[in-house]
């Protein structure tokens, strides 16, 4: 168990900057998620912590040790790879025992640890099988088991669930969270799946183009994104963004976009005052666009009439694809909505929860 500290870390491949000046502190026993789209540098960051990529600039500490020049084997880390990377010529037992054997653990201790880990993961009956005789989910468990037996200071996981089918992924997600509670070890977990990021981690690091966009607890990032990228990346369906202009009418602040105009709460004056009569990006999450039918007491100044383009029933709720003027957006409403494709429908914008972003920098205005 240990903290991991990345200090102004850079990684360049030739002229391409994969990671730009990353500084992250991962606390002891923390479950930290690195999330971002493909090519954002999250895997490279993880591989630098593992020692599989050299650092171009900066420092990485595991515990209090500077590990820049320490080979992977001496970093006391374990890694779970996206494609499992099980040794095909060894059976499950030996796959899990390999690291311990290399470290010259006594046979009895190896045996104990492998069986304990196998028990935790429910793969005791597979110990004699070769990887090719296992299903995807079983292989993933073996890969996890191989990391667990080592009892390392830090677990590194590179999209470990991305190759599993949807159902298994949900199941393993919960199991990994449980495992973290049980092992009480620092975990750095890379994923491009924002659901995994939201549900599993203590904190999330959102990366884009090698730059860290925001670090924070999942709900903090969800509710208070630092910029439009983070706002759009975290949350599913993604946040709706519309080009708009801020208008002052008397004592009220309004957002005017092509096709609608809604009032902002008065508290917004403090934060967005300087943007009056300027273009901004108006962001609102699909669940903050409400169906007027279910909101009889809605403020009329928040009501927007829009065309219903498509509806996607999800069971408990419906995603309604709306358009008004140039702008189109998604609302996430109750399954009993009367919105039907080809008709117009009235919705309510809950501007209490809406976000404003600077048009030039895309930074959050708050």
């Amino acid at each position: 168990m240990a903290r991991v500290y990345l200090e102004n870390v850079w990684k360049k491949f030739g002229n391409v900057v994969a990671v730009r000046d990353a500084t992250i502190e991962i606390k002891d026993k923390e479950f930290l998620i690195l999330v971002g789209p493909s090519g954002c540098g999250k895997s490279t960051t993880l591989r630098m912590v593992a020692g599989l990529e050299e650092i171009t600039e900066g420092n990485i500490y595991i515990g209090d040790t500077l590990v820049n020049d320490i080979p992977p084997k001496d970093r006391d880390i374990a890694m779970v790879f996206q494609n499992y990377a099980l040794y095909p010529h060894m059976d499950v037992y030996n796959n899990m025992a390999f690291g311990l054997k290399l470290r010259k653990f006594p046979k009895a201790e190896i045996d104990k640890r492998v069986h304990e880990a196998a028990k935790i993961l429910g793969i005791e009956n597979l110990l004699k099988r070769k990887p090719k005789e296992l299903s995807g989910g079983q292989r993933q468990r073996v890969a996890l088991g191989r990391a667990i037996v080592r009892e390392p200071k830090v677990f590194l996981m590179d999209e470990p669930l991305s190759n599993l089918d949807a159902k298994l992924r949900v199941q393993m997600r919960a199991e990994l969270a449980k495992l973290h509670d049980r092992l009480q070890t620092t975990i750095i977990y890379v994923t491009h799946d924002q659901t995994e990021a939201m549900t599993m981690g203590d904190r999330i690091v959102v990366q884009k183009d090698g730059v860290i966009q925001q670090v924070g607890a999942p709900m903090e990032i969800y509710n208070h994104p630092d910029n439009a990228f983070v706002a759009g990346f975290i949350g599913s369906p993604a946040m709706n963004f519309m080009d708009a202009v801020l208008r002052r009418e008397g004592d009220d602040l309004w957002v005017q976009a092509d096709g609608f105009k809604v009032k902002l709460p008065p508290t917004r004056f403090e934060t967005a005052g300087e943007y009056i009569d300027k273009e901004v990006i108006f962001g609102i999450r699909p669940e903050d666009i409400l169906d007027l039918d279910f909101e009889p007491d809605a403020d009329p100044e928040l009501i927007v009439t829009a065309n219903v383009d498509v509806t996607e029933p999800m069971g408990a709720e419906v995603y309604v694809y709306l358009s008004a003027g140039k702008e189109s957006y998604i609302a996430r409403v109750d399954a009993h909505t009367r919105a039907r494709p080809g008709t117009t429908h009235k919705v309510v914008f809950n501007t209490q929860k809406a976000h404003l972003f600077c048009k030039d920098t895309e930074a959050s205005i708050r």
Partner: protein
Amino acid sequence: MTHMQSQETTLPKTGFPTYSRTRRKALLKSASIHLVLIVACVIAVYPFLRVVSISLRPGVSLLSTSLALIPEGATLDNYRTLIFDKDFTIWLWNSLIVSVATVLIGLLLAATAAYAFSRWKFPGRRQGLVFLLLTQMLPPGMLLLPIYIMVVRLNLFNTYTGMIIAYSVGSVPFSIWLLKGYYDTIPKELEEAALVDGADPLITFYRIVLPLAAPALAIAGLFSFMTAWNEYMMARVMLQKASMFTWPLGFQRLRDQFTTQWGIFSAASVLVAIPVMLLFLYSSKWLISGLTLGGLKE
């Protein structure tokens, strides 16, 4: 269930049902494949059987035109003469030493060099690979003289070492190419997993990469063995001392100026084929495909 029902209803009412036609087709296909294979086997095995047959003939009927596989009055006299009255065991021993050493040295050099070519980027990597390929394009005869001169200057004339070096020169480049190609197919993640697990690059190489490359190593080993085992020309130039002769050189001694002892010659041919057959049989268990299956998500 519905699928099965619909299949039943579409069966034609008259004539053969469709499944029978497909089965007949499959039978025909299987039969023709077997026929081709049987013919190929006969073509391959018959000459060998003839040699066995000749080796068993008693001296009086050596030039018989009989086609019987087991000749009349079959005897092991030719084998006895070969083993006890000629230097056959010495030739065989020399060949074995030179061939096995060529395999071991060749594999050691090729397995490590190919790994470097496959995994690391270094100046001259590309040129090196092309150069190795070029050496394979030269006819072996062209190399005779330069190798001879080198061997003489290095005082390796009439020695095992000289032969082993000369044969390795021929087989190592091919083995490097073969192994490099195979290493390229072994996922890098497996090595990374081992590095994180606590292995250094050398342990990773021989605990992870080498076992997975077993099929390619087996083929490279076989190739090196055969190169050295059957070679005549180089041996003819580099070995003058009779006690150093490999079997192809020794065989020449079985021919006198006016006669050839075909019975003994055949017996010798049968005996030298045995190590090669054993080697093929032994290495066949390594020649299995899909060794890396299951390690990674396909």
